[in-house]
């Protein structure tokens, strides 16, 4: 039986093994695979199975369906193909690899739900609410930060210990302007300006990088979470 692994932010949240001839994918609850994310249309796409072949069909969704990063309208799936819909990725396997224990049978669709998945999606929902409230991308203060949310509405946002920067960071040996976040056409770019090694993203020191939703930015002892807006 074919299998589909559903991932959110690269974390597996669901494994689907089905005998159905067709599964529907979308944001609303009447779909076989429900993807709760604003980048997903209500009836986003479907996968049809016949004679050991699987075909994914995009249902004229707003943000598109991608197979191996290529936008498609209809595409025959091969083993290990990665379907991207919104922030989700779905990995297609022609045969189920290892039926996990504890999977519940549900109308022919095997679903694995975890508490982590729920909290992941709940977090996402909260972050979406914040982004909607601020009307754009925001930094969420996590540690040693004097704000809870900071809207990234400037072309350039400076981070450091000088009194004139937009976002204050704490820590010894930080430069006045240790880092900057520049709004570019394809997203937000974080660049270290002060001495190297004092700006990190998800624990890794960076010179410059395009921020992804959920990235944890560390400048000195201060930690911010980047949440991408519309």
């Amino acid at each position, binding site marked *: 039986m074919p299998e589909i692994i559903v991932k959110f932010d690269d974390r597996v949240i669901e494994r689907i093994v089905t005998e159905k001839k067709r599964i529907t994918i979308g944001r609303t609850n009447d779909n076989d695979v429900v993807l709760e994310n604003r980048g997903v249309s209500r009836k986003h796409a479907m996968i049809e199975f016949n004679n050991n072949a699987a075909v994914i069909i995009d249902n004229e969704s707003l943000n598109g369906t991608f197979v191996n990063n290529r936008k498609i309208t209809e595409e025959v799936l091969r083993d290990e193909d990665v379907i991207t819909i919104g922030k989700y990725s779905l990995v297609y396997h022609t045969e189920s690899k290892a039926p996990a224990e504890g999977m519940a049978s549900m109308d022919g669709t095997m679903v694995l739900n975890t508490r982590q998945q729920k909290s992941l999606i709940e977090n996402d929902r909260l972050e979406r609410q914040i982004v909607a409230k601020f009307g754009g991308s925001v930094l969420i203060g996590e540690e040693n930060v004097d704000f809870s949310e900071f809207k990234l509405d400037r072309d350039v946002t*400076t981070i450091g210990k000088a009194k004139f920067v937009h976002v204050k960071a704490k820590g010894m040996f930080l430069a*006045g302007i240790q880092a900057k976040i520049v709004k570019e056409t394809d997203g937000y770019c974080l660049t270290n*300006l002060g001495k190297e090694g004092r700006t990190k993203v998800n624990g890794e020191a960076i010179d410059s990088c395009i921020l992804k939703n959920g990235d944890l930015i560390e400048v000195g002892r201060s930690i911010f979470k980047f949440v991408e807006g519309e």
Partner: protein
Amino acid sequence: MRLALISDIHANLEALEAVLRDIETADVEKIHCLGDVIGYGCDPVACLRLVQDHCEIKLMGNHEYAALGLLPPSQMNNLARESMEWTVQAITDQEIAIMAEFEMDATTAGVYLVHASPCQPDSWPYILSETEARQAFPCFSQKITFFGHTHLPMVFSLTSGDFLRGRVGHDLDVDDDVQTRYLINIGSVGQPRDVDPRACYVVFDGEEGSVTYRRVEYDIKATQAKMVRAQLPQQLIERLEVGR
């Protein structure tokens, strides 16, 4: 406290070296730099290193701000933008890290220091007229502000009775009257624009209450020859010998 105050070096190494030699004879305790170490000229790296080594307070100028990528190119004039494109190619992460430490303003020895204006230090307005100076006086509380940015040595004084006067930069003894306040432009080391091509800086003596402008000759031809080799805009090269 006797201070040497320098500003607007603009990557002119010969002018900066000449000024630093002159400062050695001026019996000062500290040197402070009011920004724009780079831009226009062809020695940004050497000038930044010298300023880093010799100056205690180092303020951000709009050219440093631009080199750090914090000032949109649309907010610069064509010559500044063209030379900034050259400058960012010439500097490394080390120079970026030096500039990232520069402060936007400072208060020291009872005086306020800023590159462009005490009102909005990071939006770089020009204070050229008495009207602009009048708007700037309420933005600082000290008796004296020293600033740069316009490359024009100027002394604006506000005396009792709200009497404001702007004059071309001149030596002065600070008036003891508590109501008298000053906005003093210290001129430019590396690109003077007051029709005197000599490098310009100021010595401030806090005890004596004196402000002295010093003009220093330097090898303009040598600077120009290097700028020609660096293929910097002709207008930037020519203006050095006429000082405007």
